[in-house]
């Protein structure tokens, strides 16, 4: 089969897939008797029309950058980490333990401590399926799905028992101390007479997420380990022949992936809720799959895709507020993005390949 030109592969294919997903979403909106154009206007207005809207969009985007990177780095080793949800849940547990039980003098130290807690527990939760894949050959997709459910049950158990403050009825930890409060965009960018991002949850974690994008980019394309991860992803037998240990690559890749998913918790648990509640991940682990697929597993693409999904999330919330379109419409759009950019990829690529081969000057065949 003819290869597509690089620009078509990177820009045209995802763009057409996205367009297909958008058209189908518009049809869904039409089918339930609403106007897709005014819905889009409302979403743009609600998500991007004010610093408040941007504050929510970037808050959601921060979550999705972490989970998107988590899925992407596993994709580079041709591993499908569907367990971001569980790893982020455990990351939340790590953040809560660090913030509740250690008295931090300043938020910057607390942030570092919380990042370590989130990353360690997230990585540990990914390490078990990774070990089972590497050593026992159990399929990582199935084990990570199972670990999502086990994580949910574990957190449920801890929140109604050990971690719940005495006398509280709610399944949640105590509120974190004031000293662990992360500066929000409102704290950072507002001046005395011009309040920006009022009440929006976006916080300093957004910059940590941006930094994570750069670090992952460096890791994948500019280090020996990244090279090994990519070679293993292209051909595990060739990588093995070249002296790369599959066990090592699977373990390390999955632990980095789990740590990234876990790090999401510094945004939603430490930055927003400031305590650990049940179901705080809210499906962000799964959105990471859509984000990684749309961003072609490249940190820059993931950054853009995460902001797009942040926009969809905030816009969708506004839609649910002002129209009769329920919030679940976003789940439909997310599903269509996954379907077209992930599973039906070839449906877009095959006709394009035919189209491009028509225009290409065919070299004289020697066969």
């Amino acid at each position: 089969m003819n290869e597509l030109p690089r620009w078509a592969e990177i820009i045209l294919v995802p763009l057409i897939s996205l367009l297909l997903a958008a058209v189908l979403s518009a049809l869904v909106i039409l089918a339930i008797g609403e106007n897709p154009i005014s819905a889009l206007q409302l979403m743009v207005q609600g998500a991007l029309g004010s610093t408040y809207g941007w504050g929510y969009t970037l808050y959601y985007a921060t979550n999705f950058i972490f989970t998107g990177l988590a899925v992407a780095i596993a994709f580079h080793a041709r591993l499908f980490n569907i367990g971001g949800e569980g790893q982020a849940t455990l990351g939340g547990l790590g953040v809560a333990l660090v913030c509740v039980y250690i008295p931090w003098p300043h938020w910057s130290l607390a942030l570092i401590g919380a990042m370590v807690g989130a990353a360690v527990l997230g990585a540990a939760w990914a390490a078990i399926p990774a070990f089972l894949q590497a050593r026992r050959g159990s399929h990582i997709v199935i084990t990570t799905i199972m670990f999502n459910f086990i994580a949910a049950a574990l957190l449920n158990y801890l929140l109604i028992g050990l971690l719940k403050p005495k006398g509280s009825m709610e399944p949640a930890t105590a509120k974190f101390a004031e000293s662990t409060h992360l500066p929000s965009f409102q704290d950072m960018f507002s001046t005395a007479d011009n309040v920006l991002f009022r009440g929006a949850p976006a916080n300093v974690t957004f910059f940590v997420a941006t930094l994570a994008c750069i670090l992952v980019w460096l890791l994948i394309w500019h280090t020996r380990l990244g090279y090994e991860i990519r070679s293993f992803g292209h051909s595990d037998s060739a990588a093995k022949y070249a002296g790369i240990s599959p066990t090592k690559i699977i373990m390390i890749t999955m632990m980095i992936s789990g740590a990234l998913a876990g790090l999401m918790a510094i945004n939603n648990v430490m930055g927003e809720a400031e305590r650990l509640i049940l179901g705080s991940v809210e499906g962000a682990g799964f959105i990471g799959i859509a984000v990684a697929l749309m961003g072609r597993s490249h940190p820059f693409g993931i950054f853009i895709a995460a902001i797009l999904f942040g926009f969809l999330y905030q816009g969708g919330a506004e839609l649910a507020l002002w129209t009769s379109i329920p919030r679940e419409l976003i789940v439909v759009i997310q599903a269509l993005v996954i379907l077209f950019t992930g599973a039906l990829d070839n449906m877009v690529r095959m006709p394009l390949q035919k189209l491009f081969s028509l225009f290409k000057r065919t070299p004289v065949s020697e066969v």
Partner: protein
Amino acid sequence: MDLLTLLLILDSTIRLATPLLLACLAGLYSERAGIFDIGLEGKMLAAAFFSGAVAYTTGSAWLGLLAGIGASLVLSAVHGIASITFRGNQLISGVAINFLAAGLTVVIAQSWFKQGGRTPQLVGDARFEPITLPFADAVKDIPVFGVVYNELISGHTSIVYIALLLVPLTWILLYRTRFGLRLRAVGENPASVDTAGISVVRLRYIAVLICGVLCGLAGAYLATALQAGFVKDMSAGRGFIALAALIFAKWRPWQALFACLLFGFLQAMALRPDVLEQYLGFKVNAQLLDALPYILTVVILAGFVGKAIPPKAGGEPYVKER
């Protein structure tokens, strides 16, 4: 434990195991043909909604069942097109189908019934009623056998009996027919099936569509038999428990029945913590019971209780021109 409590728990075991069993057998057909399906959950959910909605609108549970199967078949076809025709990633396709169902059911339910993403309560013929098996009343005074027959075996909805019958049927189809041999072969070594002049694509599509029908049954059972109507996310992870049961059973029908009964029993026990505490002498944690099917599956997958080896060609798109 007195007989009646035991029978009550076993009775709810059967009711809770039925959707698991149907979804598990659905997955069995698909995966034995080499198509991984983590979209069982989504197909069940879509079927649950459409069966509930149509049963409410028409007042007939059977029409609801048909609608549920139809909805599930549409999603199966999407999975088939993505993973067979366009050789896409089967796992990603399954994930997409789960989300598509989770979102669409609520969006459509909200616009159709305006009750916050659910269907109205089903009453009368819109639900599957329990069937009293012949002589159930006549034998109920016979000790043990009569009570067991009357309380446990008789008095389920027709879908329960269909599901139970499907186990031997699947076994016969899989191990005693030409179709079954081909189906198993196409999941292990599609190239050999192709060489024998049999269409891999056709066989795989048939398997995926059978999977759709069975998921449709499972979903319809949830909304029109187990409960009276559809509520948001009502499949509640059952598609994944079924997947776990499938691995537990190592992709074999009889073992699938036992795995689903075991997981159904765990769910039934989780509903009766008082009984557990009374007979075990200590309080069993409800979250532990919830997580047990998943933990058991991981243990099985880890190979501590014998190795679960999936069909060899599972998850790989078949490319003829190599």
